[in-house]
């Protein structure tokens, strides 16, 4: 089955609209959003409305989770908090009740395979699982969370790593960073998402039943950057969109 994963939209409607158009064209079997709908740009309500309208199964990112804890005074501060101030009361409630994780358990040809979706890491929505994490440390993250395939975002730098325990049951672990639809930081300003395909022979002793494809797409970056510059948000956020850092 074809599963689309995306995350870190960060209130960037032009990027999200373009991404959704491409996702629809992929005709996936299921779509999951790994959080961070808000922050850094001017369209949090529009992004949330689209996710809700489509009924997309979504988990909370660190930005989504912190919105309800911001005080009225904090929300009035000039600068980056304007991105949260824009969020409607109803959408704040939606963000506050998003789940932290979603797990899928597959039983294919009698073999069990666990997929876990988190925003940052299984233990925190604000922890970065970066590409250069040492193998052994990374494998223990999987084992503590009882996951064979771990999908996450948060760093805005997409990658796919297969970790090999060498021997034993549930040998291979798949780490998938979904990148970012609306605020990439890997030097490529294009939006990005992931297509994860689980074949009927997917299992934990071999790797070829699982495939991961990274899709990058052009969108109207200037529209997103100008929305930042024309509002009270720090202009640096516009520069970050143009240069992807």
């Amino acid at each position, binding site marked *: 089955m074809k599963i689309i994963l995306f995350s870190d939209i960060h209130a960037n409607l032009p990027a999200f609209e373009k991404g959704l158009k491409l996702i629809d064209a992929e005709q996936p*079997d299921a779509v999951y959003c790994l959080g961070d709908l808000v922050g850094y740009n001017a369209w949090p309500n529009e992004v949330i409305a689209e996710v809700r309208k489509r009924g997309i199964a979504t988990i909370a990112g660190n930005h989504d989770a912190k919105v309800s804890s911001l005080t009225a005074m904090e929300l009035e501060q000039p600068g980056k908090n304007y991105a949260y101030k824009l969020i409607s009361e109803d959408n704040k409630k939606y963000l506050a009740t998003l789940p932290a994780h979603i797990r899928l358990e597959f039983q294919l040809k009698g073999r069990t395979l666990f997929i876990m979706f988190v925003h940052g890491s299984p233990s925190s929505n604000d922890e970065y699982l970066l590409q250069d994490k040492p193998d052994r440390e990374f494998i223990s993250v999987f084992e503590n969370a009882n996951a064979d395939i771990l999908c996450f975002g948060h760093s805005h730098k997409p990658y796919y790593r297969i970790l090999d325990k060498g021997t034993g049951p549930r040998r291979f672990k798949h780490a998938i960073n979904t990148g970012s639809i609306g605020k990439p930081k890997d030097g490529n300003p294009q939006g990005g998402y992931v297509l994860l395909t689980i074949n009927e022979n997917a299992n934990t002793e071999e790797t070829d039943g699982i495939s991961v494809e990274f899709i990058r797409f052009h969108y109207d970056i200037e529209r997103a950057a100008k929305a930042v510059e024309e509002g009270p948000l720090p202009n640096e956020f516009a520069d970050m969109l143009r240069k992807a850092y």
Partner: protein
Amino acid sequence: MTIALFSDIHANLPALEAFFKDLDSKKPDAVYCLGDLVGYNIWPNEVVDEIRKRNIPTIAGNYDFGIGRSSDDCGCAYKTDEEKANGAVSISFTNQIVKDDQRKYLRTLPAHIKVEFQLNNDKFNLLLVHGSPRRINEYLFEDREEKSLLRIMQDADADIMCFGHTHKPYHRTLEIADSGTVRYRHAINIGSVGKPKDGNPKGGYVLLHIKENSSIQAKDSISTEFIRFDYDIEKAAKAVEDSPLPNAYAESLRKGV
């Protein structure tokens, strides 16, 4: 947030279409399908296509599991010889008409989905299964002994467990009192979109409401709505009668049994 849960469509396209119309008016924030897309009526491919088109996260039911593997066994607990004979016609007919691509989809559906909430410095897990966490075709009826139901949920680390398979909806809140604290587990059967068996022939599904103050320590903080909707039952029943399927399935649809 509001989560819509539905299952047991059983190839009943008129019921699925009416369900989607009703669902869209309720504007849920997320939608999950708990399996049994096929069997007992003439539209298994169309039902699979509609659910895929909406990208709905879906788990496998016992009938999906059987058809996905071109098996002649749906894991159904038929009681009488007549039920067994009818069941054999249904699975054989379904195996004949389901196409390769739809069969492949059924074959790669996950078995369970678990949604883990962390609200108010507390955690609770919503587990979605078709029959039970132990077996895809185990029937968890409303009169299940409380102790047994609690053990099943505890073993699966489920605070809220939603399932279908029996086609008879209910929500049971189970109280656990230990060392001065009281917690609640919720066992929720979501009924059936396309083949209800509780005496009410209308299609059914559930809306699960999770609020900011939802907690396993507050009994009514997790609530459900059982929605029933009208659909063109005659169209679904006539389709059965005009097909090689046993006419008994048309009567089941008309009476909700």
